[in-house]
């Protein structure tokens, strides 16, 4: 009985997590846009504007370029699907999501990689000039972010002796004194940079650009219209939210439910939404004050993240 209720519980928690990421993602983007506009002295679009845009996009025509293949059609689905699975198995709201066994940082990284890889292929699929450019840049940045990301994971997982996310989160909850070790601070700094790079935010990429030559992510999706574009938009927003959700639960996991009880889930939900919102606002404020760096200075940024992560590992060793 208890196993069945546990399975149902984890299933429901996962569903809640997916839902909060799916809805919260576009909202988070709206919030960040609003914050930016306010700081720029504008009113800005409503916070829910992204949701409206998405609803509208679903009502529009679908296109497929004549040279494109099924990859073009599959990519947006895959992008969202991987984020959905990732959201389902990550301890955002509770440390007992479904498929807890696979809730591994390494798995998450590669799961998200599936979506971005397919999107990069889709960029090349239509046979246009800018799609290839975007794909090339996106995969390059992705490749350069990878060392920082994995070493960060290494640094974060040494305390828990595992890269399993629920295990890491539980370990922090069990040992609150280890929250602010230099090892974790360095690693989390690196992780934040990587998250910014991976989700195509300033200063790595400007999602609002209209100039194809400066595009990274936008250039890949120039061909998408209607529902496909909606999926891509949702996927990207979810991805950002998910990454920030993981980040906040690694920084300060308090509030996350350690069971699948209703009250725990509600508290967990509230806390994760609040924490992500805070970080989102912080990022938006930060973005107002910086400009996009040149493409070939991105490696410097990522190398910096890598060094931070490595410092994290080293300081962990020193502390031992």
């Amino acid at each position, binding site marked *: 009985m208890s196993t069945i209720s546990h399975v149902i519980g984890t299933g429901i928690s996962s569903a809640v997590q997916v839902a909060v990421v799916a809805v919260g993602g576009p909202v988070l983007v709206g919030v960040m846009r609003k914050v930016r506009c306010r700081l720029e002295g504008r009113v800005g679009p409503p916070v829910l504007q992204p949701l409206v845009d998405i609803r509208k996009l679903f009502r*529009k*025509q*679908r*296109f497929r*370029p004549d*040279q*494109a*293949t099924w990859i073009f059609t*599959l990519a947006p*689905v895959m992008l*969202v*699907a*991987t984020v*959905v*699975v990732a959201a389902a*198995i990550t301890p955002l709201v509770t440390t007992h999501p479904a*498929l807890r*066994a*696979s809730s*591994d940082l*390494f*798995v998450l990284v*590669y*799961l998200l*990689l*599936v979506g971005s890889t397919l999107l990069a*292929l889709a960029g*090349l699929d*239509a*046979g*246009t*000039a800018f*799609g*290839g*450019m975007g*794909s*090339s*840049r996106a*995969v*390059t940045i*992705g*490749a350069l972010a*990878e*060392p920082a*990301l*994995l*070493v960060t994971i*290494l640094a974060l997982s*040494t305390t*828990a*002796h*595992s*890269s*399993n996310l629920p295990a890491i989160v539980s370990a922090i909850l069990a040992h609150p004194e280890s929250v602010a070790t230099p090892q974790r601070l360095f690693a989390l700094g690196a992780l934040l940079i990587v998250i910014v790079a991976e989700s195509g935010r300033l200063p790595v990429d400007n999602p609002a650009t209209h100039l194809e030559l400066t595009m990274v992510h936008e250039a890949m999706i120039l*061909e998408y219209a209607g529902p496909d574009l909606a*999926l891509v938009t949702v996927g990207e927003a979810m991805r950002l939210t998910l990454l920030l959700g993981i980040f906040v639960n690694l920084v300060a996991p308090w509030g996350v439910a350690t069971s699948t009880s209703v009250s725990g889930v509600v508290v967990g939900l509230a806390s994760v939404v609040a924490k992500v919102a805070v970080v989102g606002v912080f990022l938006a404020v930060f973005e107002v004050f910086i400009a996009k760096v040149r*493409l070939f200075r991105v490696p410097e940024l990522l190398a910096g993240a890598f060094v931070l992560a*490595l410092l994290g590992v*080293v300081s962990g*060793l020193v502390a031992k």
Partner: protein
Amino acid sequence: MTAGVLVVAGALLGLGGAIAGALLPKGWRVRAATALIWAACGCEAAAAIHVLAIDRPIVLRSTELLPFTGVTLVLNSLGAFFVLLVVMVAVPATLYGIGYASHGLDTRTAACVFPLFVTTLLLVPTAGSVATFMALWELMALTSLLLVLVDHSASEASRSAGTWYAVLTHVGAATILVAFLILAAHSGGQTFAAIAVHARHLASGVRALVFMLALVGFGSKAGAVPFHVWLPKAHPEAPSPVSALMSGAMVALGVYGIVLVGDDLLGGGPVWWWLVVLVLGGASALFGSLHAASSTDLKRLLAYSTTDNIGLVLLAVGAAGLYDATRHPLLAALSLVSALVLLFNHAAFKGALFLSAGSVQVATGSRDLDRLGGLLRRMPQTGALFLVAAAAISALPPLNGFIGEWLLFQSLLHGAVIGSTAADIAIPLAVAALALTAGLTVVAFVKAVGIGFLGRPRSESADEATEVPRTMRLAVGLLVAVCVVLGVAPTLIFPAVERAVKTALPGLGTRILAHGVDLQVVGLRGMLAPAALAGSLAGAVVGIMVLRRALSRQPTPRVVEAWGCGRQLQTARMQYTATSFAEPVQRVFDDVLRPVQDLDVTHVAESRYVIESVTFANTVDDAIERSLYTPVIRAVRRWGQVARRLQPGSVHRYLAYGLGALVILLVAVAVMG
């Protein structure tokens, strides 16, 4: 003893295949040889499975063969694993060979040598003595060399590749031979069993020398940096089934050799040996993936990616040795498991990739990515199979490549906390190498798929490409199926892997991995539920597709011209090329890759402000070849020129040599009394 019969029968059937290939008429020879090779594969696979099942080696001896030493075949669990690996690549590769035969594999020589090559691949892991091993090893080198040279009359590149391959593989064999002979001289016998008994008690200097020599020799076969230079030359030039076997199976045997010498014969060694292996592995992984990311020739890209994958395997082997040396048997076993799983996976997807690259070459006559494009529409099945294999090699879940890298990462992760200084330094760097390699592999294969198979065709031949014969697709399909199955249910091969690992690292009583649907590292906190992950991913994909269909007003998309910023004409030339795709990576890593760029601007005669034409060439040749091999070759050539003065043709000079020698001897004798 029946199992022993199977081993012998396999060898004989393989020989029969060679004879059939040599004697039968053209219409028959490839099919007959292939059938016999399958039978041979079947026998060897059965023997291997038997060995793995009973976990006791098969030992065969014959004094009639190989003068002075006789033949000793010992098939233990480690060897059996490699036999299975070879079988897994050989069956599809030979099946593919039927359709591919008209491209150089149906000549009498090739039809005879190809079965021999497969047979030696099958038998090398069963060699139980120095002489047997070297004989099979050299036969493998010879047969593969002949197969690389199949296209010699048409292609200068093939001739050059053959020379490079021959020389490097010979140097490698010579170093292996020295390593083995040192061991044999100290142990009174030349069987591996005798060597294994005595090798542990040798002086540490001798042991280190042996290991380093073996590392160089086997490393050159495995394609590890800096001995990899033959790979990007030979693999592209060989016929595709041969490339698949060379890259999938033969290269794996190089790793087999390192494990054989390092673990089986020498019984492990001090930490610094394995740090060398780790460094070699990391360098190979990074160098290989960087070059793969910047190559524009499809098969060259695959060859470099072999170096990259072998680098990862060596990382795992090195980590295993490191843990073993610091007495962490469980971690050592886990690392070695990841090494073997990585190798097995690599054999599957690299085989599939080389075979589909061959299909592309058959269909378009080119393997230059900048002349391909749009093939997924024209060769939908080949393209889809290539895509899946590329996803597998990029370690994307839920395919097998991911499982291997996850295991490697787990072993490194747990190694970071064992408290050994060497591990403390090596492990984070290894993780970084693994990560960057993984990222660059994605770049390489997004390029391979995206430029080669998607978009508009970049040449007429690519435009006119049609799907290849069914057998060829089926062969690739088999290997891709392995990739998918092992991605979803990797535990299928774990019993075999575990037996193999326990043979190499004896003394490990416990199980390494919990078997079942999920992966669980016993005693460590690492788990993975690949099947559930794959299932939920599939569910999510289907769900979202249904959702998209339900939400949108128009179920199928309208096919329109691509948005070209309003341009009137969209041509293939407007697309990104393989070179431009790789440009950012190349620019970031130009210190390592050292690309050579040639910009040639021609002005019209009337004015230097009007440009008539611009030629731009960007080539990335192998920096290691340029800075390590070219100077050596040049020095040796110069020495050869100088040495010619020894024989100037003058009889007086020649006699003077004799007189000089005589005088020296007489002086020596006079001094000795």
